[in-house]
Structure formats: structure tokens, C-alpha cells
């Protein structure tokens, strides 16, 4: 893979992780909002409600995809690179909340969004793999 290919793979996977994590959490939250109050005596009815809840199931599917994509990224990128890069999802969640849910963004939240952005830019300038040896080749 060429250096440009490596960069593209990082960009695609960071974007995939941010989108699947943000939307996955949002969908699960939507789904939980629509659920009745939990009573241990109604476990079967509660389970049936959750297993036919489109938002919950869609959210869980996205979170499973997020987990698999993150694990595959660990085969060529550092944990200390992947984690801060994908923290931009916190900033996106706050901004989505402002546009779609009319949530107010306080001064502290704007400062948080700005700091996360600075952190992501700093980490993005570091090499994504810093182990002494290059990533091992996949066994074929």
C-alpha cells in the first residue's frame, strides 16, 4: 500500500468509527426513550419490546460495526493514535444536538469542542504507527 493509500485508509476508518459510534449511541438512546419503565416482573414483555425496537436494534448493529472496525484498525495503528482521533465524535454529538435537538451549547462546551479539535489536529500530525517494527503482514 502506498503512503497515500495509508493516509486514505486512516481517514476512511476514523470517519467510519466516528459515524458508527455517534449514530449507534444516538439510535440506542432513541430506542431506550421509547421503552416502557423496566419492571423485573415483566422481563419477557420488556425483552420482546426491546427486540422489536427498530432504533435499539439499528443502534446495536452500528455499535457492533464500530467495534469490529476499531479492532481492525488496531492491526496498523496505535491505540494512542486511534483513541484521541475518534474522540471528535464527542464534538460532533454536541454539534448535532445543537442542530437537531435545539440543545444550547454553553461557553464551557464550546471550549471543550475547541480543545478536542486542537487535540485531534495535534495527534493527526503524529505517525499512526510508532512500534519499532512495521505492522506484521497478514497470514495468507
Amino acid at each position, binding site marked *: 500500500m502506498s503512503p497515500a493509500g495509508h493516509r486514505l485508509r486512516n481517514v476512511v476508518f476514523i470517519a467510519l468509527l466516528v459515524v458508527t459510534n455517534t449514530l449507534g449511541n444516538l439510535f440506542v438512546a432513541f430506542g431506550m426513550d421509547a421503552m416502557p419503565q423496566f419492571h423485573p416482573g415483566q422481563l419477557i414483555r420488556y425483552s420482546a419490546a426491546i427486540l422489536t425496537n427498530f432504533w435499539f436494534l439499528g443502534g446495536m448493529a452500528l455499535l457492533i460495526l464500530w467495534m469490529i472496525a476499531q479492532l481492525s484498525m488496531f492491526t496498523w495503528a496505535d491505540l494512542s493514535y486511534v*483513541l484521541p482521533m475518534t474522540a471528535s465524535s464527542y464534538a460532533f454529538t454536541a454539534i448535532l444536538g445543537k442542530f437537531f435537538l435545539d440543545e444550547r451549547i454553553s461557553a464551557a462546551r464550546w471550549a471543550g469542542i475547541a480543545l478536542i479539535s486542537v487535540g485531534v489536529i495535534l495527534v493527526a500530525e503524529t505517525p499512526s504507527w510508532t512500534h519499532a517494527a512495521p505492522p506484521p503482514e497478514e497470514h495468507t
Partner: protein
Amino acid sequence: MKWVWLAVTVLTSTAGDLVSAKGMLGHGEMEQFGPRRIVRLLRYIATHPLIVAGILFDALSFLSFLALLSTAELSFAVPATAVSYILKTALSHSYLGERVSTRRWIGAACVAIGVYLIAL
């Protein structure tokens, strides 16, 4: 009690990420993403002891976070978990052997403080 659940949440989440990442180092670099590669990746994930342990740690972390929410306000619980970025970055160096440069450390610290402020 909330400090106990906070500690359990942060520690299990950290353990989950670190052992998962460690387990994936043995897989080899993913360069192609065709159906056969994906099936092999899924089989590797499902059968590697460290990765299975990592997923269990993540599940424990989720449950202890729910317990934390039952003993503390959301405005305490979410910002407080931002400290895990610092812990994970430190252990990425000592446990996984990553070379965390000063620039990356500053970036990770900015992200941790940013997550703290955003969730406050």
C-alpha cells in the same frame, strides 16, 4: 460509592482497550477488506483469548457505568470518565510499546480536558 464505580468503570474500560489492541497485534496488518478477509478477521476476534477478554471487560465497563449512573449525576459520571484517556495513553506506551511523542501527549491531554468540559 460513586468513586468505587467510577474507578471500576475507568479501569475495566482501560483494560478492555489495552488487551484488545494487544490481541490484534498478532493478526497482521489489514490491507484488504474483501468478504474472505472479513470472515477471517471475525473468526480471529471470536477465538483470540485477549480479544474475548477485552470484549468482556468492555461489557463490565458498560454495566459498572450504569451502576455509576445510579449513584451519581450524569454531570459527574461522563466528565469523570475523561481521565481514562490519560491512563490509556500512558499504558499504550508501557504495555503496548507505542512511542508516545510529546506532541501526541499534548494532543491526548487536550482531548481529555475537552471531553471533560463538553460533558460537564
